[in-house]
């Protein structure tokens, strides 16, 4: 296919129209370009040069550049003196494409013919920044750095900043307050002109290439957005996003927000804050904490052994203590038994005494019983004998008993004769009588 398009010797692309005279073509080209739409462009001015009638420069950003020219009278109308149209200035130009066809002696020239130029305002830069931000966020470039691991205690930190600046001093003070005394590798670079962004990018890449560097800080003091514009450079920010070492940005003051803040692993408001982000660990506090840990471990170890040895000691003393306890119990039992025994002996003696009394009583009673029997027999015999002598027995045999009026026995005739009345008692009763005369015996 490609070979078929190669024109044979002596003929140049015979299927194309022409050949036309080049001057004619150049003039037609000029006309065509001038018909293109007029637009506004924004970018950084570089390579400013002047002729008698016009000024030349390139308008550039991270993506590309366009050669520009402006007639000096248009420049004057815009109110810009030569000092304003300088390298590094951010400007907005309006105009359109132009082409100078040259001539027999003059060289042709293509340019963007600016008819108006002004310094870029904050609004222009913010709009441009937002466009870049939107594009890079959509590409996922803001997340890459944030996924990197940031060591709590880096041994070496790279720093990109201006060699003479307050940011350098503040960063050092912040690191010293942290108690950090590792290696600090300075990658000095300009931080505010058109050379700044490429130089910062190179320093970042060089630092990231060093194996000992574990974090990189990029810092500069405050300024206008135009002053900080190098840190919104698209190429620089894409470089930062792709680095495998975490970058900590501290550009400008708290209210300033540059594109490098978006792509960095951490964005800080001040160099002091950046020092804390670069060394997340407060070394002084960490030493104190470590001492507390060591103490806790020592106490835990000693405590574990001490507690258990005391427990073991208590266990070892257990049998002796148990024996003592049992011995005490036994002694108590002995005392109780002794007391009970003494009480038992007394009770038993009393009981025995009672038993003895009962036995004696019974014996006595038994003894008394036999005596009574004898006595009863004797009594019976006495009764029998007595009864034999009873007057009734005599009376039963036919005798009579003389009694006085009062029942007193009258045992003599004299007594009977003397009594007025007498009573004669027989075995079957008595009769009353009056003595009449007494017979002498």
């Amino acid at each position, binding site marked *: 296919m490609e070979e078929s398009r190669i024109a044979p010797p002596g003929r140049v692309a015979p299927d194309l129209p022409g050949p036309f005279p080049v001057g004619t073509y150049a003039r037609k080209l000029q006309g065509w370009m001038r018909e293109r739409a007029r637009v506004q462009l924004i970018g950084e001015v570089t390579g400013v040069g002047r002729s008698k009638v016009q000024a030349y420069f390139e308008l550039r950003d991270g993506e590309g550049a366009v050669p520009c020219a402006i007639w000096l009278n248009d420049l004057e109308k815009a109110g810009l003196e030569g000092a304003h149209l300088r390298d590094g200035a951010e400007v907005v130009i309006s105009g359109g494409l132009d082409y100078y066809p040259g001539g027999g002696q003059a060289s042709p020239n293509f340019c963007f013919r600016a008819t108006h130029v002004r310094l870029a305002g904050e609004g222009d830069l913010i709009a441009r920044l937002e466009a870049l931000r939107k594009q890079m966020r959509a590409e996922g470039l803001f997340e890459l750095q944030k996924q990197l691991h940031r*060591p*709590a*205690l*880096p*041994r070496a930190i*790279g720093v990109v900043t201006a060699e003479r600046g307050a940011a350098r001093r503040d960063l*050092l003070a912040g*690191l*010293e307050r942290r*108690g*950090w*005394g*590792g*290696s*600090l*590798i*300075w*990658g*000095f670079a300009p931080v505010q002109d058109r050379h700044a962004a490429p130089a910062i990018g190179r*320093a970042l890449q*060089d*630092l990231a290439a*060093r194996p000992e560097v574990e974090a990189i800080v990029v810092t500069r003091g405050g300024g206008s957005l135009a002053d900080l514009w190098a840190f919104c450079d698209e190429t620089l920010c894409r470089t930062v996003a792709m680095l495998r070492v975490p970058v900590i940005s501290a550009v400008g003051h708290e209210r300033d927000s540059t594109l490098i803040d978006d792509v960095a692993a951490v964005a800080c408001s001040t160099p002091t804050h950046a020092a804390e982000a670069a*060394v997340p*660990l407060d*070394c002084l506090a*960490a*030493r104190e904490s*470590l001492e507390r*840990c*060591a103490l*806790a*471990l*020592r106490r*835990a*170890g000693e405590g*574990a*052994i001490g507690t*258990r040895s005391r427990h073991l000691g208590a266990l070892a003393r257990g049998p002796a203590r148990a024996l003592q306890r049992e011995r005490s119990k036994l002694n108590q039992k002995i005392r109780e038994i002794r007391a009970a025994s003494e009480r038992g002996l007394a009770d038993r003696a009393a009981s025995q005494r009672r038993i003895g009394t009962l036995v004696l009583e019974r014996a006595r009673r038994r003894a008394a019983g036999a005596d009574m029997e004898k006595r009863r027999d004797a009594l019976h015999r006495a009764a029998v004998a007595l009864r034999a002598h009873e007057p009734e027995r005599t009376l039963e045999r036919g005798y009579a008993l003389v009694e006085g009026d009062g029942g007193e026995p009258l045992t003599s005739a004299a007594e009977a004769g003397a009594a007025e009345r007498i009573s004669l008692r027989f075995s079957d009763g008595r009769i009353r009588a009056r003595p009449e005369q007494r017979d002498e015996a």
Partner: protein
Amino acid sequence: MGESERDQSSATKPDSYEAAVERLEEIIDRLDSGQAGLRETLDLCKEGKELVTYCAGELDEVGEGLKELRLDDLATKLDTASEVG
């Protein structure tokens, strides 16, 4: 934790200061809980002391005073060394 695992864990050097501190906090928490037996307590104390030593060493590495170097000088030295080499 098995015997071999325990030996391995106490002998392994931590990946980083953060990992060492994280493990140290776990150990202290476990010891504070009072649930570890004697053997585990002694093992944890041993491992903890090794971690404390490691962390102290790391802090010592960055505790000897800030050393300032210039990237330009380092690059020059590197170039000189490569030329000599």
